[in-house]
């Protein structure tokens, strides 16, 4: 994982293809979160805030261990707690580290109108470039995980960078480094998938979690953060992890066909009135009855 993986694969709001698009294949980086060994210690939350240099945010108590209801523009990593009632009446305390999923097909990037405000590197990291961000919030509509957050002071959007600054120097993300149980892993997508599948098989075969599985949603082309879940058939129980996340079709239509329909309609309007003028010309004040016309 060196800076070589920071070649740009995709850019938001860009007229034409991204320079260098598709000229190079490189391995994808990936975070694996094994929710079955997470103890909810929140070391990853602290490490994230520390590494990224933000002051700690006030916590919000809501009858739960959860630090606050949702991530914020300066709190990118949040363990979501859920006291989940199982079918046999027992309770499971489900804990899931919530952060940007670094989708292979990022909805934020599709929705973004600002040239170069969101980039996807060839290593799969989706990163916001605040110097190009215009603060419009379109990424909020595009994201299927409700991740991008607005900083009202600077009017820019922020989210987890997957510690692109650390990764590009060959280090693991800060959250990974801080995890005391080893439930967080970092490596290439292929390696993390293998590890996750092996762990899920172990849970199924040896621990009685028959529905255990890996969360790597195909609807967004797979993600750069994957989860091992005790019950992969019910990801919603893990702090609202969407079952089948998709880039909203409205965003797809808006950024696809609507653009061309709209542009052609506007161009057609301008051409139409021009042709009208050439064919019929201006309306002159005409002499009617006893009027003699003339200029207004």
């Amino acid at each position, binding site marked *: 994982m060196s800076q070589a993986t920071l070649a740009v694969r995709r850019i938001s*709001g*860009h*007229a034409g293809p991204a320079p260098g698009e598709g000229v190079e294949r490189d391995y994808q980086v990936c975070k694996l979160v094994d929710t079955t060994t997470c103890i909810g210690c929140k070391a990853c939350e602290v490490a994230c805030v520390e590494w990224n240099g933000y002051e700690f945010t006030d916590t919000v108590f809501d009858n739960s261990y959860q630090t606050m209801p949702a991530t914020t523009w300066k709190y990118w990593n949040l363990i979501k707690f859920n006291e989940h009632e199982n079918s046999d009446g027992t309770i499971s305390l489900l804990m899931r580290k919530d952060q940007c999923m670094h989708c292979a097909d990022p909805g934020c990037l599709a929705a973004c*109108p*600002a*040239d170069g405000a969101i980039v996807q590197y060839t290593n799969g990291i989706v990163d916001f470039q605040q110097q*190009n*961000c*215009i*603060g*419009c*919030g*379109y990424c*909020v*509509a595009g994201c299927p995980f*409700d991740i991008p*957050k*607005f900083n009202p002071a600077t*009017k820019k959007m922020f989210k987890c960078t997957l510690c692109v600054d650390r990764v590009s120097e060959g280090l693991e993300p800060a959250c990974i480094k801080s995890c005391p149980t080893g439930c967080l892993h970092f490596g290439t997508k292929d390696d993390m998938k293998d590890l996750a599948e092996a762990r899920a098989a172990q849970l199924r075969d040896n621990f009685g979690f028959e529905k255990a599985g890996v969360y790597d949603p195909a609807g967004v082309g797979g993600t750069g953060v994957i989860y091992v879940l005790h019950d992969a058939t019910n990801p919603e129980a893990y702090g*609202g992890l969407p079952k089948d996340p998709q880039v*909203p079709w*409205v*965003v797809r239509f*808006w950024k696809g066909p*609507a*653009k061309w329909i*709209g*542009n052609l*309609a*506007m161009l057609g*309007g*301008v051409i139409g*009135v021009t042709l*009208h*003028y050439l064919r*019929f*010309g*201006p*309306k*002159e*004040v*005409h*002499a*009617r*009855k*006893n*009027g*003699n*016309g*003339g*200029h*207004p």
Partner: protein
Amino acid sequence: MSTSHVISSGHTAGESDGRICRYTLAERVHHWVGVFSYVYCLITGLAFWSPYMFWLAVLVGGGATARFWHPWLGVAFTLSMFWMYKMWRPDMLITEPDRRWSKTMKQYIENDDQNLPPEGRFNYGQKLFFWLMFYGVILLLVSGIGMWFVESIPWSLRWLRYLAVTVHVVAAMATIGGFIIHVYMGTAMVRGGFTSIIRGEVSIAWAKTHHRLWYEQVTKGTSAEK
């Protein structure tokens, strides 16, 4: 319309030097507040609309500046539109002469104007444009507020985020269509229209040609005979 709309008139009706007040100063000011704010929103909106037009944002200080002012100028346009509604609503209601006139729209478009039925202060097309912009701006404002404060729409109601985007785009496109026709007709096609919204006056011949019922109304009982 009161007779004060006649500023001066020739000794015989139809003399080209006779002038009639068509728009008061207040009407012109509000029209141009509307023009400025709408055009700002149009330029910046097109910049956000397509990467191929993002350069338009540079004209007004860059993307972030454009994003900051776009909603505020949108509010300004809404206010100017509501003010125009307050001023013009009585003149903009669709009337019986409009229905007659609407049947001759094709002749009007082809400048075959000799047999058009007389129209009031605004013709049917102008009224359609007015109501398009009036309802368009309401949709743009409501959906625009949703896009402005998109994070305030809870995740469970996220369909409202998508609805806001859709409505904003559709309403914007509809007003742009009307705007293109309005600018074309007001400047190039109907000569005298542009000066009337700047200086407020039209010639008597112009008034008789384009808005005969209005002309008759405002000159009733004055020296300018029919």
